[in-house]
Structures are given as C-alpha cells and as structure tokens.
C-alpha cells in the first residue's frame, strides 16, 4: 500500500489573480485548473502530452497543463483562455479565429489560441511556416488547419 500523501500549499497567479490552494502534490495543473478553480476552458484531450488541448501559458510560454505538477508552477503566472479577453473585448487572436472560421467543434481552440498568442507576443509578424511550427503540438481533428493558419495571420496583421 502507498502511504497517504498530504496536500500542500500552492501559490500561483492565474489570469492575474493571486491564488493560494491546498492541492495534492501529484495533481496536475490541468486538474487544479478544471477541478479546484473550475476554469474549464482548459480542455483535456489525451492527458499524455500528445495533443495540446490542455495548453496554457506559464510565464507567457506555452506549456502542457496535463503534465505539470504543482511544484513546477509554484509562484508562476498562469494564463488560461479565460484570461485572454479584456472584459467583453476579445483578444485579436480570438476575434480572428471567429472571423476566419479557425474552429469547428472548438475543442482544440483554447490551446490553439494561447499557443498563437504566445507566438505573436514573441514574434509579431511570423511567416506562415513559423505559425505552423509554433502550433505543431496542437492537434485539430476538424478544421484541416487552413482556417487556423489564416486566423493567426489575420491576428498578426491586426495587432492586439
């Protein structure tokens, strides 16, 4: 039998809000976000690092929440899809996905949008190839990707 494991304090900022939680040290960030904080915008697909549905930004950098342990995000600034819009005003990437039809079922969309946002923050005018590269870990079963690439190009043109 495994010995019981005590919960530990996790401090982090989620979408600009400081949080202090008592979590299992083996709960992934995906579980913490969806189940403790009820932020269900972050999707669970494979839960094994293979699909990108669970992508969030940690310190502005895309990471897979299904593989991150609490200790790895202690003190970090986490951005989920819920934190992207400014009130009722969508982020340029979100708007472009809507206008360009960069989604169908929408399941991959939170991860795609966040990975694209991080790309544009680091490189405001990427080539189509650079966009492809940046989204290479985010699978979409619906769109065939063309609408997604178009949307990110549009978002780059329109700025923030």
């Amino acid at each position: 039998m495994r010995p019981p494991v005590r919960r530990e304090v996790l401090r982090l900022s989620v979408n600009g809000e400081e949080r202090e939680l008592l979590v299992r040290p083996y709960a992934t960030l995906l579980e913490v976000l969806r189940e403790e904080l009820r932020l269900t915008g972050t999707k669970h697909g494979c839960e094994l690092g293979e699909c990108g549905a669970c992508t969030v930004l940690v310190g502005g950098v895309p990471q897979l929440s299904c593989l991150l342990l609490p200790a790895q995000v202690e003190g970090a600034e986490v951005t989920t899809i819920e934190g992207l819009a400014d009130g009722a005003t969508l982020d340029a990437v979100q708007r472009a996905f809507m206008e360009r039809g960069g989604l169908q079922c929408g399941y991959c969309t939170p991860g795609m949008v966040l990975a694209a946002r991080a790309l544009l923050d680091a490189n405001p005018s990427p080539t189509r190839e650079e966009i492809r590269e940046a989204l290479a870990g985010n699978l979409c079963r619906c769109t065939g990707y063309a609408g997604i690439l178009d949307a990110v190009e549009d978002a780059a043109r329109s700025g923030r």
Partner: protein
Amino acid sequence: MLRLPPCSYLRPGSVEEAAELLSRHGERAMLVAGGTDLVPKMKRGQMEPEVLIGLGHLAELRAVTETEEGGFLIGAGVTLAEVSAHRRLAAAYPAYVRAAALVSSPALRNVGTIGGNLCVDTRCNYYDMSFEWRQACGFCMKKDGDICRVAPASKRCRAIASSDTAPAAIALGASVVLAGPAGRRREVPVDGLYRDDGQYYLEKSADEVVESVRLPAPGSWCSSYVKVRRRNTIDFPLAGVAVALRRSGPLVDDCRIVLTAVGSRPFDVSAAAAPLIGRELTADVLAGADGLLAEVAAEAAKVAKPLDNADLHYVWRKQMTRRAVEQAIVEAAGRLPVPTGRA
C-alpha cells in the same frame, strides 16, 4: 481524467542532496526534471515511484557556460527549447541543437530538459500503452510480466532507445558529469551511459544524477542530425542519425556516425565511414555518383535490427535508416567550410 497515483514530491537543496535522497529512498524514488517523459508513464502505470525527487527548481542545473577549452558545459536542467534557441551552440554543434529542436513539440520542449532527454525511457508498442491495454494483452518483462511480447525467445527486453540528443552528443564526443551522494563526481562519455538492454538501459548507479553535458571544443567538426518519423512533429524517432565530419584540406579526415532508435541503445557505427576517409566529398560523390555513400550507409545500417514494436513497418524502418545515413552525411558535408581555392 487520467490521474497520477499518489506520490510525494521532494525539493532537494542541491544536486548532491538529490543524489542522497535517491540513495535513501532506493527503488521507491525517481528523479523528475521536466516530467514530460515520466508523468505520462506514471499515468499509464509504467512507472510507480512513491517519491518524486524534483530537479526543476535547482538553479545550479540551469546554466550554459563556455569552458576554458572552448567547449560548452550545459546544465542537465536546461530545456530543449533553450538549447534550440542558443545561437552559439547552434553554430558550434548543429547536430545537437537540431536534435533538441526535433524532439516532440514546442510546448514539450519548453519544459523537457536535456538531462531528461539523455535518460528518456526506452520505447515499445507493447509497453507504451495504458495499464488496461497491457493487462488485456498480457504484461511483458519490462513491466509486471516475464516474457517479451515482440520477441518471445529474447532473454532481454528489446525496447528501443529513443533519445534524439544522445546520438548527436556521442557523435560530437560529448560526456556527462554524474553526481552521486557525498559529493562524488565522475565524468563518462555519453556513449558509456547506455546498455543494450531495453529494461536496464542506463549504465549508471541508481543514485547518480546527470549534472551536466560537456561538449568539447567544436574544432573544425561539422555535424548534422536526421530524424525519421511519421509526422514532422510530436513523434519519437523511428530512426535517427547523427554525423560529424572533419576535413583536412579538401579530404575527409575523420567521420563519426551514430544511430538511435534502431536498437536498445544508441550505436556508434563510425567504423562504417572508413571508405570516406581520405576522399574528397565532391558534389558528384554527394549525389551518389560512385556508390560511395550507399556503401557507407549500408554498412552503417547493419546494426539496425528493427522489430515490429514501433510505428510503421520494420523493413521500411531498416531501409530508411540507410537513407537517413546518406542524408546526414550530405547535410554535414554541406556545412563544411569550403576549401580554399574552390567555389
């Protein structure tokens, strides 16, 4: 939701303390750096540590430093993304940086480390499956069972060495610094880190931590890495070839070829490059003119004995190993400085 089994997470204050914790907790404990290999495997019950010894917070593992000899010392906790974006490393060691940049996907490279990459578990289609799948199929000797499912007559596990950076590091003559308890340190060539056994694939004691990777001064070596896989992203290698070439005047002076994903350890098959030594790699030779490259590639790929335990057909994987060797030589040659007097 796929969840991790209960385990505690320890934060050692130093690499030395990590080694001491490993030694104290024995088989119950495992190191975790980025966790991109370990976490999925724990979710599938392939590994069941009760204690995780975290390395991610250790600043001492995060540095890239130039050595006095003109090489580099890269901390084991440096991420694959950091290596991929490092200009001086890219200029000096194209094979290594290319290999790091071809691992998995961008978000995984932002977290996965180079130390974890050298120690990445071996792979097999009968093993990299959920607990329920393996239970239904019957467990195998790598975990919970006693026979090999892909080669039932085999006395050992034939799971596949799948690190992308290992062959590049070996071709470049790199070594690893291993830190043990009580401040013990030793340095071994990366080639010496592996055993040809899918189950016990690392040649280091269980309480040793990979502290850093040392790349020797690049000298006039030029290098390349070619990876074969189904998709150009996410997938592990089905064959990987690292080549390092050196030229003296117009003639090839030395050539190293190292393969990954064709057996249970990376294979240094540099002896196969003998026909290239003393030859000039003209455009014709590189285009396959006198069959020189094909000869070298066929010899180099001889050790590759793929089994039916990875993606795509094993005969095709063997053929592609040869093609990848040819391509890696061509790419490395393309990076050689053009000899004087020639355009």
